[in-house]
C-alpha cells in the first residue's frame, strides 16, 4: 500500500555542512557500548569511539574529525549520544587502499571491521549488527525504498556505480552464497554482473512494502531456523567501495529532506550523524513539527537538537496532531486518509495528503481480522504471530516465522490497525525476548 503524502523531495542536491555530529549507540540493537574516548579527545574520521562489550572486535568510529565535546548519558548512565564538533580540516585515519578481489575473506573483513564500516551490515533474524565471525547464507541489498516519501536510490547512486561495484566485490568475499540485489523493473541502476556470477538481480513490482528487505528475503531466499542473512543499504556500498579505493572511512551520504512541513523538500549531501538542526532550513524551524529521522512509518522521532540516525537516509517533518476532533468518527471525512473506504476521501484517489501524528482513536481489543494480511505480503499470519509474541510463547513464535521478520515489516500493519496497537514495539519486544533466551 502506498500512502500518498505531500512533501516529496525534488531531485536537486543541496550541500549541507554541519558542525555537530553524534553517534547514538541505541541505533544498534543489542550492542552494549564500551567507550574508547573521553570528552575532550581529538579524533579523526575513522577513529574508534566505542566498541561492543559482547564482541570487542566490532568498533564504532567517528564519521568526522574533531573534538569529542560531550558524552550524553540517560537514566542509569546509559550512553545516549557521543557528540563531536567537527574540525575545520577533515582528517582521515588511513586503513590502506586495496583491490578486494585480491584479498582473502579475513582481510576484507578485517579492513571493514577496523574502519568502523562493519556495522552497516546487519543480520536477519533480529536486525542486529552482523557478527564478523559468522558467514551468512546470502546477502541482500534492496536498491529501492518504497516507503512514503522515500529517497530515490536511482538518483542518489547514479554517479557512484564505480564505488558500488567495488563494494559488491568486497561483499562477495563475505559469503559463499549469493548477493541478491532488489530493483524496480524500470530502475536506472545498471549493476555490472559480468565479473561475478554470485550477484543476482531480482525485480520487484508493487506498492510498499515491496522495497523492504524482509519482503524480498521472504520471496527470494527465506530464512529458516538457524540460518543467517545479512543485509545493507545500497548507499553503504559506496562507503565500502570508497574504503577499498581510498583507504578512508568517508561517511558522506545523500539523504532526502521530506514532509509537508518542509518548505523546499530536496536531497542533501551530509555526513552520517549530522545534527538535524543544521540540515533543516531556517524557515522550517518550528515547534509544531514532528521531526523524524527516517520515514513516517518506521523512523525515530528526534527533537531539533537531535542527530540523524546511523541507518537513516531520510528526514521527514510532519505536523504534530494533539487536537480533539468533535464527533470526528461520524463526519464524512473528505480530508482523512484511510485504506478502508469508510471516509469519503475515496472520492479523490490521487490526492496527496498532509497527515499529522494524531492516533485518530484510542487503543482497543483486537477486533478486525484480515486487515494486516492486505499489507503484509509474506507467507506468515501476522495476527497469530503478534498474539504469540504477546503471550511470550517462543515455540509458537518460531513456528509462525518470527525469524523472517523485523519491526519494519509490520509498519503498515500498525498504520492500518483499527485497534491502534503499537505493533512494531510488540514485534521488537518479541525479537529481543527470543535473542535473550537464546544467548
Amino acid at each position, binding site marked *: 500500500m502506498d500512502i500518498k503524502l505531500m512533501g516529496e523531495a525534488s531531485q536537486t542536491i543541496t550541500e549541507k555542512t554541519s558542525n555537530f555530529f553524534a553517534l547514538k549507540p541505541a541505533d544498534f540493537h543489542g550492542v552494549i557500548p564500551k567507550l574508547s574516548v573521553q570528552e575532550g579527545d581529538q579524533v579523526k574520521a575513522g577513529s574508534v569511539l566505542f566498541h561492543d562489550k559482547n564482541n570487542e572486535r566490532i568498533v564504532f568510529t567517528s564519521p568526522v574529525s574533531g573534538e569529542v565535546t560531550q558524552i550524553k548519558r540517560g537514566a542509569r548512565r546509559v550512553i545516549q549520544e557521543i557528540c563531536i564538533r567537527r574540525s575545520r580540516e577533515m582528517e582521515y585515519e588511513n586503513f590502506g587502499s586495496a583491490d578486494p578481489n585480491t584479498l582473502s575473506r579475513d582481510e576484507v573483513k578485517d579492513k571493514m571491521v577496523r574502519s568502523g564500516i562493519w556495522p552497516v551490515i546487519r543480520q536477519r533474524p533480529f536486525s542486529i549488527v552482523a557478527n564478523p565471525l559468522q558467514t551468512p547464507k546470502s546477502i541482500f541489498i534492496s536498491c529501492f525504498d518504497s516507503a512514503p516519501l522515500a529517497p530515490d536510490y536511482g538518483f542518489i547512486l547514479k554517479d557512484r556505480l564505480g564505488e558500488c561495484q567495488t563494494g559488491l566485490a568486497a561483499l562477495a568475499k563475505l559469503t559463499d552464497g549469493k548477493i541478491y540485489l532488489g530493483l524496480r523493473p524500470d530502475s536506472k541502476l545498471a549493476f555490472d554482473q559480468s565479473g561475478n556470477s554470485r550477484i543476482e538481480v531480482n525485480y520487484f513490482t508493487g506498492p510498499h512494502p515491496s522495497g523492504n528487505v524482509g519482503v524480498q528475503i521472504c520471496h527470494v531466499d527465506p530464512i529458516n531456523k538457524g540460518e543467517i542473512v545479512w543485509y545493507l543499504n545500497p548507499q553503504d556500498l559506496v562507503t565500502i567501495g570508497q574504503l577499498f579505493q581510498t583507504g578512508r572511512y568517508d561517511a558522506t551520504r545523500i539523504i532526502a529532506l521530506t514532509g509537508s512541513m518542509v518548505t523546499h523538500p530536496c536531497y542533501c549531501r551530509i555526513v552520517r550523524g549530522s545534527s538535524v538542526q543544521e540540515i533543516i532550513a531556517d524557515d522550517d524551524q518550528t515547534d509544531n513539527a514532528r521531526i523524524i529521522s527516517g520515514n513516517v512509518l518506521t523512523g525515530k522521532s528526534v527533537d531539533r537538537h537531535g542527530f540523524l540516525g546511523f541507518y537513516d537516509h531520510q528526514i521527514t517533518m510532519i505536523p504534530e496532531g494533539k487536537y*480533539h476532533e468533535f464527533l470526528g468518527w461520524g463526519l464524512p471525512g473528505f480530508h*482523512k486518509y484511510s485504506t*478502508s473506504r469508510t471516509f469519503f476521501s475515496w472520492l479523490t484517489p490521487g490526492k496527496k495528503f498532509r*497527515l499529522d501524528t494524531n492516533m485518530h482513536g484510542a487503543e*482497543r481489543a483486537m477486533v478486525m481480522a484480515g486487515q494486516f494480511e492486505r499489507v503484509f505480503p509474506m507467507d506468515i499470519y501476522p495476527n497469530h504471530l503478534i498474539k504469540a509474541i504477546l503471550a511470550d510463547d517462543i515455540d509458537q513464535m518460531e513456528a509462525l516465522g518470527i525469524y523472517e521478520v523485523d519491526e519494519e515489516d509490520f509498519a503498515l500493519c500498525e498504520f*492500518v490497525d483499527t485497534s491502534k496497537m503499537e505493533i512494531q514495539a510488540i514485534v521488537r519486544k518479541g525479537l529481543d525476548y527470543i535473542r535473550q533466551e537464546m544467548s
Partner: protein
Amino acid sequence: MKSLRRFLDKVKPQFQKGGRFEKLSSTFDAFETFLFVPDKVTTNGCHIRDAIDLKRTMATVVIALIPPLLFGIWNVGYQHFQSLGESLSIGANFWYGLGKVLPILIVSYVTGLGIEFIVAQIRGHEVNEGFLVSGILIPLIMPPDVPLWMVAVSTAFAVIIGKEVFGGTGMNILNPALLARAFLFFAYPSEISGDKVWIAEKADAYSGATPLGEALVGNFEKIPDAADLFFGFIPGSIGETSTLAILIGALILLFTGVGSWRIMIPVFLGGYLMGLIFNLWGANDYMRVIPAYEHLFLGGFAFGAVYMATDPVTAAQTTNGKYIYGFLIGFLAILVRVLNPAYPEGMMLAILFMNVFAPLIDHYVVAANIRRRLKRSGRAVVQNTLNV
C-alpha cells in the same frame, strides 16, 4: 464546540485517578471519546495512522443496518394492517411500525450498554464500541410482537454470558446478538415459535406464520412468490425479511471494506449449493418445491450471511479459513432448515455452530503454514549437511 471542550477539560480531573468521581472514569471516557476523537498522538514506530478507528468501523456497520431497519419498521406496520384487511399509506404503516420497533431498540441499547459500562468500570477498561452494533442487531432479529422484558433478559444474557465472561469485545466466541436470539428461542419456545409473534397485534383469524413456518407444515401453496420474498413483504423478524434492503447494506459493508466478502459470498454459495442438492435429491415436497435460490431469500439467511457471519471476532480469521467458514455456514443453514423440523430457522444455529468451530478451522490453516515452514527448514538442513 469550543465551550463543550472547555467544559470537558474542566471536569476531567474529577473523573481521573484521585478525583471525586473516579468510579465513573470509564463512563466519562466513553462520553468524551464519543464527543471528541481523542487528541492522543503517536510516539515512536508509525508516526501517522489510518484515520479509521473502532468507532468509525462500528458506525459504518450501523449505517449499513439502516436499510433493513427502515424497511423492517415499515413492514411491521404493513403486515399488521394487512392482517386486519386494511391497506394504509406508507407513512401510516411506518408510524405504526415505529411504535413497535423503537421500544425494542431502546430496551436493547439500554440493557446492553448499561452492562457494558458497569463491566468496563469494574475492570477499569475503556468502554468498547462492540455493542453499538449488537444493540441494533438484536432488535432486527426479534419478532415484532416479542415482549420487551424478554428482549431485556436475552440481551443481558448475551452480553454477560456471551461476551463479558470471556473478557469483553474482541474475546467472545459466539456472536452476542445471535446468542440473544438463541436464548429467546430455547428459553421461551412456546411464546416465540408458531404463528403468534410474527405479525404485531394481528387479527385472530389471520395466519401469522412465516413462509418458513408454512413450509414446515407442508403448506407450500402459502409461500409467497419469489418477488415478495426478495422485496420482503412477508412476516418475519423485524430486519430479516427484505433481501433487497439487506443487499444494500451488504454493498455498503463490502465497498467500505468493513465486511469481508471472503465470508459473505461463500455463505450464499454454500446455501445455494445445498439447495440445489436438495432439489436434485427431491426426497420430499420440501426439497422439491422450493428452488435453491428462494432459500437465500427465506427467513434469516441473507441477514445472517451479511451481518452475522461476517462479525470479525467470531468468524475465522485466516483468509482460507474464511472461505471454509462461510461456505459451511450456508451449507449447514439450509441442511438444518430442510431436514430438521424442530428448527425452521437453520441460519441461527449454523452460524453459532460455526462460531464454535472457527478457531479450529484457523488452527488447521495456521498449522499448514507451520508445516510448510518446517518442511522448508528441513530441506535446508539436509542441503547444508550435504554441502559440508
